[in-house]
């Protein structure tokens, strides 16, 4: 029984939800809800980039923000200079992907162990953060775009319909465009994961020695996986820049990298839907906290994070699935004990 994509219910459920939200959403929600959900969509694409390289390639990056920021700044500088956003948007995928490949070559051909891999990516992000923060003077500008250092780049053009530079997307159109991008990214990732390349990457995640004993060049594989993840993160950075029409060095901050880690860990490593769920829940939670003035918000957010790790060790989605399975079993006492139906943890 081969677990082809077509037979995986989880996949179709996610696709269904995505399309429903994309088309019905604008009719149902007001402008404010649309703007808020657009932000969750952007951050979900960002979370997917780490969910893919970590969950399905065994590559733990502490510095996903480096590519998020690089994509955002590439889009900002390119769109301000070109005045049109289609080419810059493509650049915001290609440039970070190329940088990811170069950095990947530097790391994977250097036989770094996982923990040091995490640290190298963290150090690279810190370097970006330091250098970008230093570009405050007028002499730091590329073409017409001032990098602006700590204050960032203001008034970044809004995404326009490809081909017609003046047709800027209104919030509802931008929401649908971003929702479309999220669905396409999710679809492509699931296809890659189900493909032979994906199977080998999962093999590499499980046991690198065996993969090389089968003749697979794991270093090349990891560079490709890392580049794909970097490209997606870069694109989500561009989506963030055009959504907010403003970008500042916080896009490169340690907090941005840590957020991605939290979402994937909380959502469940080895799944794609989990991190998306975690983005929505945790972002909504910190938004809610901001409006309720109980104690100090850092205090509450910290307590919740610790609770998450101690109570849901395997992350939100796998735990929910486990809970559902257990309840399903308890509900059907007459099931015989052998529980032949215990299906392998499918990669939703």
């Amino acid at each position, binding site marked *: *029984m*081969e677990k082809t994509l077509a037979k995986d219910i989880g996949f179709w459920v996610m696709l269904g939800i995505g399309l429903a939200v994309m088309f019905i959403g604008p009719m149902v929600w007001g402008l404010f809800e649309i703007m808020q959900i657009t932000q969750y969509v952007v951050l979900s694409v960002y979370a997917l980039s780490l969910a893919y390289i970590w969950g399905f390639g065994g590559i733990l990056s502490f510095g996903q923000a480096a590519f998020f920021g690089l994509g955002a700044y590439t889009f900002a500088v390119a769109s301000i200079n070109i005045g049109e956003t289609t080419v810059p948007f493509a650049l915001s995928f290609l440039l970070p992907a190329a940088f990811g490949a170069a950095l990947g070559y530097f790391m994977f051909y250097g036989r770094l162990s996982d923990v040091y891999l995490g640290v190298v990516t963290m150090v690279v992000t810190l370097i970006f953060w330091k250098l970008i923060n230093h570009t405050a003077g007028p002499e730091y500008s590329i073409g017409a775009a001032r990098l602006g250092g700590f204050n960032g780049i203001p008034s970044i053009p809004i995404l326009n319909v490809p081909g017609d530079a003046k047709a800027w997307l209104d919030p509802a159109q931008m929401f649908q465009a971003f929702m479309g991008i999220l669905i396409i990214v999710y679809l492509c990732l699931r296809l890659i994961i189900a493909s032979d390349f994906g199977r080998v990457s*999962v093999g590499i995640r499980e046991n690198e*020695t065996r993969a*090389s004993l*089968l003749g697979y060049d794991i270093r090349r594989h990891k560079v490709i996986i890392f580049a794909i993840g970097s490209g997606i993160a870069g694109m989500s950075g561009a989506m963030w820049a055009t959504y907010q029409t403003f970008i500042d060095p916080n896009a490169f901050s340690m907090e941005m990298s840590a957020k991605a880690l939290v979402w994937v860990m909380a959502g469940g490593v080895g799944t794609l839907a989990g991190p998306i769920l975690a983005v929505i829940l945790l972002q909504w939670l910190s938004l809610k906290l901001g409006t309720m003035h109980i104690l100090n918000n850092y205090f509450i957010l910290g307590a919740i994070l610790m609770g998450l790790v101690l109570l849901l060790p395997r992350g939100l989605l796998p735990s929910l699935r486990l809970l559902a399975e257990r309840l399903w079993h308890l509900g059907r006492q007459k099931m015989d004990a052998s529980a032949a139906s215990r299906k*392998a943890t499918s990669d939703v």
Partner: protein
Amino acid sequence: MSDAHILTTEKLVMQFGGVTAVDNVDFSLKEGELRCLLGPNGAGKSTFFKCLTGQLTPTSGTIKLRGADITGWNTHDIVNLGVGIKTQVPNLFNGISVYENIRMAARRKHLKPMAKEKAEQMMEKCGVSHLARREVGLLAHGQRQLVELAMVLAEEPPLVLLDEPAAGMTGDERDRLADLVLETARSAAVIVVEHDMAFIRRIAKFVTVFNRGAIFREAMIDEILSDRAVQEIYLGKQADVAA
């Protein structure tokens, strides 16, 4: 099979700090030959094996595979020249099913449909079909050895290197293994590193005995078994050897 040599090593040396684990070994294996490597613990068999598989880069000397110098190559480059490797400690994709593991190995050589059929064929041959859906991580040690063997054979490599394949196996699993190795030896060259004398007796023809990193003696299996010098290095000097 022509009598050309599939694998040769010249003055192969492997040193860890002060210790010389492999000491100037000249070794050659003919196409289609089945060779067993014997020797007491710490004789350098496994280190020699790891040099062949590229897991270790030898300190000096050369290794040639069908004339091509593969000294110091990466493991995956060596494997791609048609070498199947089974390591001492089974290296498997633990989180995935047995079928999935073997299918991935078969996929290296065959296209999709053929790979599916090849995998099922191999599972049948190695007697692990009933475990197809089970996660490899949950299998017993002997079963894992058989799955790893099935993966190596699924690629149908012209040269097969097996490091202690019989370790941890039950009686009948070992017999099945012996038949499999003999059958493989008909179509490929095989090197087996092993301790298990019962297993060796069943499959061995020409044998190489290692001691202290060097080749001690090379001869047919029955000569080796009756050679007092070999028994001494196995059982240690003082032991009075029951004839």
